[in-house]
């Protein structure tokens, strides 16, 4: 540990001496990292990447500090060799927030900066394509600003006073002049409204663009896949520019499931957000719970009891298995093996969901973690079932899955060499999870920056080196096996005891400060950035969603591929729209 401390001190000295004016340590109580002047940001980031080895920019987000009249952009950078985060921030005035874009240094910042522009109105100078990403062009206002109010606004914070003790039932839409969730700016005239977009023609579908070239004159056509398309795993849209059958360019369009998770999260109390996190990546609810619980526990300073730690690990790994099963099943669906492999995968998944249902109460929306533990203990009979699953059934069934899929000629022909992402590209584009590891970067948060009790288990970080679709499929099989190993160890070691530290509380204050809790979710690094101002509600609640950021690499993977393969490339990233759009 001391070696690391020395290293961190050296880093600090280097940074502060190199930028004596522009970089300061963040002195606010409960905060960490550096505050960088906007004009020095790009140099600072370049130094981090090239001199200090922080080559992976994980999270970019904005915070609206309304009382101070400031906007802050928060960056979390990591080394892909492991270790803690380096946090740096830029503060700009609220009236005209302009920050230099970090896309030239870390291309993975692309979508995240667009999101900060979309929701907070922070302008990133030098961004190649600064458009709204989750909402549509023309939307009025920047919803995550603290002084922006939604049409159904009731109060700043929950719980609402209208519910008790004089809780006469009403429907909120009945208080809206239109009876719906709408509001329009003053003086707006719908007749003069022109849906803005320079790309509108392209989005209309099948618009044609001439290609300038001196060889054979061909025409490029633009095809829309989605938002209602069986291959897109939900409501996701890809605007694909084609030259014949070859993909020239691809632009992901998202936000069709943007359900305002963060705005609602900032109205909620700390505890209320727990069930909402289930609905982020609804295929991996336990991991979401885990990440959020970690972030808030860091601020609260509570530590779960031993048994709870083990239960958390067992549940998180079961979640990973069922998520990967579903991902493999759907991936084979995309490949054209309609539903039969999915049926087999879902069959095993149902058994895991039975466990969740018996322990947490719901198949998908588990709401199981609490700050300082878990909601309830695993009953004895369910424990037996987990034993049977982890030691007998699942290993057998995974082998079976492996046997009939991995060697299949159709799977191999379709997926080998398709959608290649090199290690350098994967790091630069901030890809996470199986996508990153299939490209040959053995980066796993469980190993690189262990949380919970993951440092106690013996498991291998699955890694493959080709970076193609086939490897991304194989890595999921590998990870299921490793997860089973972890569960088996945890089941053997789990001690008896309480599962929740302290008394269950529903209203509590959280000490002021910021905190970033991250876990290795099935889709990749899932992070929760929360800021507390000492009240019962989070001041800022941001989710670093792996599905969303992994899509940054989609265009890179699909360029030069056939249009039919776009579908399986997307399937191999394994996105869930609840998390992508939040």
């Amino acid at each position, binding site marked *: 540990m001391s070696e690391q401390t020395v290293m961190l001190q050296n880093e600090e000295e280097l940074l502060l001496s190199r930028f004596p004016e522009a970089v300061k340590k963040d002195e606010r109580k409960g905060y960490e990292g550096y505050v960088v002047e906007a004009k020095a940001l790009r140099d600072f980031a370049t130094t981090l990447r090239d001199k200090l080895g922080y080559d992976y920019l994980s999270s970019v987000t904005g915070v609206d500090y309304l009382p101070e009249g400031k906007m802050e952009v928060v960056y979390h950078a990591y080394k892909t060799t492991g270790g803690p985060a380096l946090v740096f921030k830029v503060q700009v005035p609220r009236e005209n927030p302009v920050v230099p874009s970090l896309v030239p240094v870390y291309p993975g910042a692309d979508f995240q900066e667009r999101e900060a522009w979309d929701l907070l109105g922070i302008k990133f100078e030098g961004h190649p394509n600064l458009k709204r990403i989750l909402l549509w062009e023309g939307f009025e206002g920047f919803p995550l600003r603290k002084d922006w109010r939604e049409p159904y606004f009731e109060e700043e914070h929950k719980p609402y006073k209208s519910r008790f003790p004089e809780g006469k039932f009403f429907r909120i839409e009945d208080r809206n002049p239109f009876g*719906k969730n709408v509001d*329009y700016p003053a003086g707006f*005239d719908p*007749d003069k409204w022109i849906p803005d977009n320079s790309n509108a023609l392209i989005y209309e579908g099948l618009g044609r663009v001439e290609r300038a070239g001196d060889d054979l004159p061909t025409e490029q056509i633009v095809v829309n896949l989605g938002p209602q398309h069986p291959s897109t795993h939900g409501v996701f849209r890809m605007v694909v520019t084609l030259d014949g059958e070859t993909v020239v360019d691809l632009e992901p369009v998202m*936000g069709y*499931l943007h359900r305002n998770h963060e705005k609602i999260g900032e109205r909620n109390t700390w505890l209320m957000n727990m069930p909402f996190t289930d609905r982020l990546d609804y295929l991996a609810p336990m991991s979401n719970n885990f990440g959020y619980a970690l972030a808030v526990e860091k601020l609260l300073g509570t530590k779960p009891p031993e048994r709870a730690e083990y239960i958390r690990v067992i549940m998180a790994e079961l979640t990973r298995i069922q998520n990967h099963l579903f991902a493999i099943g759907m991936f084979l669906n995309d490949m054209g093996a309609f539903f039969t492999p999915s049926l087999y995968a879902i069959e095993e998944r149902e058994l895991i969901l039975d466990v969740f249902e018996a322990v947490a109460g719901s198949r998908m929306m588990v709401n199981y973690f609490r700050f300082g533990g878990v909601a309830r203990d695993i009953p004895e009979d369910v424990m037996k079932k987990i034993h049977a699953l982890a030691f007998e059934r699942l290993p057998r069934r995974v082998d079976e899955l492996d046997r009939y899929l991995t060697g299949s000629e159709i799977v191999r022909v379709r997926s080998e060499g398709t959608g290649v992402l090199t290690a350098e590209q994967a790091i630069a584009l901030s890809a996470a999870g199986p996508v990153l590891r299939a490209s040959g970067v053995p980066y796993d948060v469980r190993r690189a920056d262990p949380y919970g009790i993951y440092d106690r288990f013996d498991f291998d970080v699955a890694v493959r080196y080709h970076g193609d679709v086939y490897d991304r499929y194989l890595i999921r099989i590998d990870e299921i096996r490793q997860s089973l190993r972890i569960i088996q160890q945890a089941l053997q070691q789990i001690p008896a005891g309480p599962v929740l530290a302290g008394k269950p509380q529903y209203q509590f204050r959280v000490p002021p400060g910021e905190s970033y809790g991250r876990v290795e979710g099935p889709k990749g690094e899932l992070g929760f950035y929360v800021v507390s101002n000492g009240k019962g509600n989070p001041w800022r609640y941001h989710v670093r969603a792996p599905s969303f950021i992994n899509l940054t690499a989609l265009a890179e993977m699909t360029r030069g591929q056939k249009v039919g393969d776009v579908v399986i490339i997307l399937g191999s990233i394994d996105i869930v729209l609840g998390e992508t759009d939040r």
Partner: protein
Amino acid sequence: MSTKPKKDEGLNSPQYDIPEELQNTVTITTLDKIYNWGRRNSLWPMMFGLACCAIEMICTAAARFDFSRFGMEVMRPSPRQSDVMVVAGTVTKKMVPQIVRLYNQMASPKYVVAMGACASGGGPFKEGYNVVSGIDKYLPVDVYIPGCPPTPQALIYGLMKLQQKVDRQTIKEIYSRPDEMIPVPVLGPDIMDPREYDRIRAYTRQKAEQEAAAAADTAQA
């Protein structure tokens, strides 16, 4: 809890008396009944999922719950070939124009099932600025299934309710109803229903006047 399945008497329950000796050989039914019998057992859902509920819908289609037992396994990605639209998940403002368009493209008779709290009435995300408070603000809904998400069995129960509804319809009723087109909402500063432009205009003018008055007040003060 478990009982033997009852014999399906949906079809063979005429209002006419059949002689005892012919009861196993002759079936008398009405045209409505046989027509509905055919329809209710081949309700093809659209392959169309929005959010969490869609995963439960996939599970319903999979081996354990298997709604092909109800003739619903043929999920069609094309609206032209589907009879029932299961709105499975949160409807957002950005998605609603597409959903309305898909509904318009479906061939009559068509049905809409709102699966889950979100599709029924907005659900836990109702207060969000991009969420539609229930798909029934735009489309006529036949069956609402509460739950967040409804379990596969709850979904099947809802679909059985829909079958019961189909049973009660008559051919005349189905085809006398005009096939109305629902105007597709437009994405403006907020979602706009083309039928409501007059109201929007009045509202924004009034709002502008109020703001001007408020500004004048502060200027005077």
